[in-house]
């Protein structure tokens, strides 16, 4: 029983290797019917269906990569609205309550003249999430159309987006530290706001979207 199974696997392997898959460019692994495992990066014939090393299911490309990426990105855009409208934290100072949104926090630092801190917060909390959303949308579009940038440049853009993903979480950690640290009874206290949760959602969703995107799709187009 096992013997016949092995033999059929072998014949599948042979047929997959002898028949080049013309949907993919020459020289690529997919052209030869070889799939790189998503989990452990082992190269095996896609006909085996499961990676012999880590048992993950094998695919030449992530299944429904663009659809999943777009779904996650649109969810992130929805989360981005409350993240900017609601206060990210509320400061109580001698009985006075002030709520600040992400943007008003930046404006406050500019008014105080701390341009460097304003720049760090502006970059991490406003620029990077927005840039990530736009870049991922653009990359999804670039897989179907001829783009002005070369494929190598788009790939570098994607890797940068993936790398920078977790850095937007800075704002959440800042709030966490401030909430814990600034609790001097009756003088001042800081509480997190609704926007903090929405913002954490934006960061995680854009990270997941970047993971779901398959860069190799861009290299599959003949140029």
């Amino acid at each position, binding site marked *: 029983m096992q013997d016949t199974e092995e033999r059929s696997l072998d014949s599948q392997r042979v047929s997959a290797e002898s028949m080049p898959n013309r949907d993919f460019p020459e020289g690529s692994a997919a052209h030869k019917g*070889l799939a790189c495992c998503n989990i*452990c990066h082992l190269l095996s014939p896609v006909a085996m269906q499961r990676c012999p090393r*880590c048992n993950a299911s094998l695919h030449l490309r992530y299944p429904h990569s663009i659809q999943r990426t777009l779904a996650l990105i649109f969810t992130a855009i929805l989360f981005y609205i409350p993240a900017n409208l609601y206060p990210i934290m509320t400061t109580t100072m001698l009985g006075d309550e002030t709520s600040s949104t992400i943007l008003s926090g930046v404006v406050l630092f500019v008014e105080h003249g701390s341009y460097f801190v304003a720049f760090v917060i502006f970059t991490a909390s406003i620029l990077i999430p927005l840039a990530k959303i736009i870049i991922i949308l653009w990359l999804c579009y670039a897989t179907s159309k001829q783009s002005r940038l070369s494929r190598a440049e788009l790939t570098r853009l994607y*890797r940068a987006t993936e790398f920078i993903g977790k850095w937007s979480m800075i704002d959440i950690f*800042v709030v966490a530290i401030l*909430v814990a640290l*600034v609790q001097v009874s009756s003088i001042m206290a800081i509480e997190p706001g609704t926007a903090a949760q929405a913002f954490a959602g934006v960061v995680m969703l854009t990270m997941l979207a970047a993971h779901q995107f398959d860069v190799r799709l861009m290299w599959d187009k003949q140029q």
Partner: protein
Amino acid sequence: MQANSQIACFDCDLLINVPEMAENHSLICPGCHSKQFTKYKDPLNYSISFASSAIIMLFLANSFPFLSFEAQGQIRTITLIQASQEMYTLGFVVLASLVYAFMLLLPILYLVSLLILLVPIKLDRKPFMPVFIGRLMGFFLTWVMVEVFIVGVLVALIKVIDLADIIIGFSFWAYIGFVIFFTLTANIANRHQLWDWIEHARH
């Protein structure tokens, strides 16, 4: 890591024949110039020692005061764990759990998993469920944000430095040491190396 094995570039899917590699050399994809992996010197021993150092540092970081905040004669001292605990007591359960997981729980799970995998290999024994542990570690590493947390702490300090005196505790420095050792460990035990160990452990 045997030579003349083949890999596919994870960026452009080009087939690459892995050459015999010298220590501290990286393999670059000839098609799209993205880095595939780096071969380090004596990865097994270095991974085990860096991972153990990171765990010791994390233990120290949880044993002493992290930061103190002094305003108008009152001092507020917090430990590392309070960074998520305070949000939990204020009712922000999801947010508190995320912060806790990203800065403490997932890194420690990653390091412990790595040691569970590598120590038996070092002692020439069969590791416990190597494939399962390898897959878990990939998941943990995606969500580890220790270096982001450190920058977050620094930005928070800049925000309050005008309001009060800040005293940086011993835990803060221990946590920085932990971040350094963690990064070294994750670099040496990279995905290529990790699955290479797991493959050898299975036979």
